[in-house]
């Protein structure tokens, strides 16, 4: 008997773009008329991963790393140069129409709602576009409205919604046909804290309670820490790391941070087994390797040498981890 296929298979995906270049200024524009220079950019250079149904994966990387390109290929919008991609057994760009009926997509920087129509009308239009029968549409829609608290927004034209409100409506719009797979391309970009929490909460429930597979690209590392069990890090079209959050941490650094609040901000905290990474008034932050010195011992040494008001041990934030993975630690930028 054949093994059950993973839901999403991506193998050795390559995508290049041709970028035309011209010298700046008037002379450059004139020369561009006669002779255009093209440069080939490799947006994806051999990306491979597989996803099982019900996974919630964070797909992160710096600007231009190839995150959105990957999502667009998975969504059937772009055609890769080479490589294999199968989602629910279909090749997205070959069977586009059948494929997109089974996925939901949200591009955080754009809306799929009709700008001049009330939200409710956009929902009706999507119902017709996805050919969802009315008796199936109503319960799905009502549930999304309840979960995302959209009731007060339904009669408003989309152009009058705030960014946070619009994103909630966009999420509902992407899920009206109850797709088993959801692609979120920077869904929290530009949102305030409350809206971000609402979105995260909803995505978590969707994944846990409905088993919807979610691929999330983001710059917001809090999104990743709050949501994702698995993280794929990509830079320059290559996958740098693929695994759980703790695996990612362990791979990059075993470092922990000890933060203490001193009673006397004039004191200098020093220890042979720890390095001072930040000092901000009363607050001092030390980095240490728990295999060289146990946290208990370090705390004991520090507390015996200084009067302190508070202390805590934490993992370095995921930003630091990822930045180190990219080879560019934010610590080097700090004094």
């Amino acid at each position, binding site marked *: 008997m054949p093994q059950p296929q993973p839901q999403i298979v991506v193998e050795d995906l390559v995508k290049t773009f041709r970028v035309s270049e011209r010298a700046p200024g008037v002379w450059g524009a004139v020369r561009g008329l006669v002779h255009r220079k093209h440069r080939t950019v490799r947006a994806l250079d051999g990306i491979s991963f597989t996803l099982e149904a019900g996974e919630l994966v964070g797909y992160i990387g710096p600007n231009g790393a190839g995150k959105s390109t990957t999502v*667009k290929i998975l969504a*059937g919008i772009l*055609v890769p140069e080479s490589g294999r991609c199968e989602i629910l057994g279909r090749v997205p760009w070959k069977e586009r129409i059948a494929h997109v009926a089974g996925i939901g997509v949200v591009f955080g920087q754009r809306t799929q709602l*009709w700008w*001049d129509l009330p939200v409710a009308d956009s929902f009706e239009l999507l119902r017709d576009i996805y050919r969802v029968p009315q008796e199936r549409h109503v319960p799905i829609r009502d549930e999304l409205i309840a979960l995302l608290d959209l009731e007060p927004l339904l009669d408003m034209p989309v152009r009058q919604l705030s960014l946070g409100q619009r994103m909630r409506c966009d999420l509902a719009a992407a899920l009206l046909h109850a797709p088993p797979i959801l692609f979120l391309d920077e869904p929290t970009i530009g949102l305030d804290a409350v809206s971000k929490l609402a979105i995260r909460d909803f995505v978590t429930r969707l994944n846990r309670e409905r088993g919807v597979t979610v691929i999330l690209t983001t710059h917001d590392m809090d999104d990743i820490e709050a949501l994702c069990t698995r993280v794929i890090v990509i830079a320059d079209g290559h996958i740098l790391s693929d695994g759980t959050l703790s695996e990612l941490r362990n791979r990059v650094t075993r470092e922990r941070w000890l933060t203490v609040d001193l009673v006397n901000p004039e004191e200098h905290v020093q220890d042979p087994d720890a390095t001072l990474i930040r000092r901000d008034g009363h607050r001092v932050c030390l980095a240490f390797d728990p295999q060289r010195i146990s946290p208990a011992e370090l705390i004991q040494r520090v507390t015996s040498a200084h009067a302190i008001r508070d202390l805590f041990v934490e993992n370095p934030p995921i930003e630091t981890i990822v930045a180190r993975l990219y080879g560019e630690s934010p610590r080097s930028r700090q004094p």
Partner: protein
Amino acid sequence: MTATTAIALRPYAAIVSARFRMLLQYRAAAIGGLWTQIFFGLVFLGVYDAFYRSSLQQAHPMSFAQVVTYVWLGQALWAMLPWNPDGEVRAMVRSGAVAYELCRPVDLYGLWYARALAWRTAPTVLRAMPLCLFATVVLPLLGLEEWRLAPPASIESAIAFAAAFVCMLLLGCALTALMNVSLLWTLNGEGAVLLMAASVTFFSGMIIPLPLFPDWAQPIVQALPFAGLVDLPFRVYIGHIPPHDVVAVLRHQLLWTIALVVFGRWLLARGMRRIVVQGG
């Protein structure tokens, strides 16, 4: 219509109706357009009036009264002339929101054709009625009896025109959809669109009725698809083309529509392979 066809067509019908309703809201644009059309109509008629009065030639290819009705029809149906791509599609291609358009489980060409149908009809509905009212009722009251829009030449002409009018819309939407597709080649597409706009306005007869073109140009302009957008249906209306010849007109329009749809679909399939969705 069978149930399966109804389900198959549901997305496209929904797009046409939503877009139509949305466009009907743009009343200010319609009023602005109405004034422009009245102004252009009067300027054109002033020129033709002078031309016909000063011309010594006796046998004109069209009578002055026929030209007047031809001009007013053109102004009334100006919004149906496919001289530009769909503004919404252009904005989507520029902003990258076209990505969503590609995520819909529908045929993209069909979707854009459906958009074009609404886009070519809704503004026309808003503008044609008041303009026809102006050209048939107000002008005679102002003492410009000779400049008024006449009814169709006969009942037969009216029926024949109704058929040619439907085909004129179908042909116009095929051209609009083709221009939309050309936008996928962002920069070069804009140039193609400009060229198309010039061809459509000039060779459709919208500026100068095609019978007034020189004799040597007649076989060419009559064979081009643009004649089916303005000249052929309008000449059916004024009786310049007798009602029993309408079959040839419809054949011209439908053959070109089919050819343009086939070409548009082929071009779109090619465009999809090389598309670069802008931004992010």
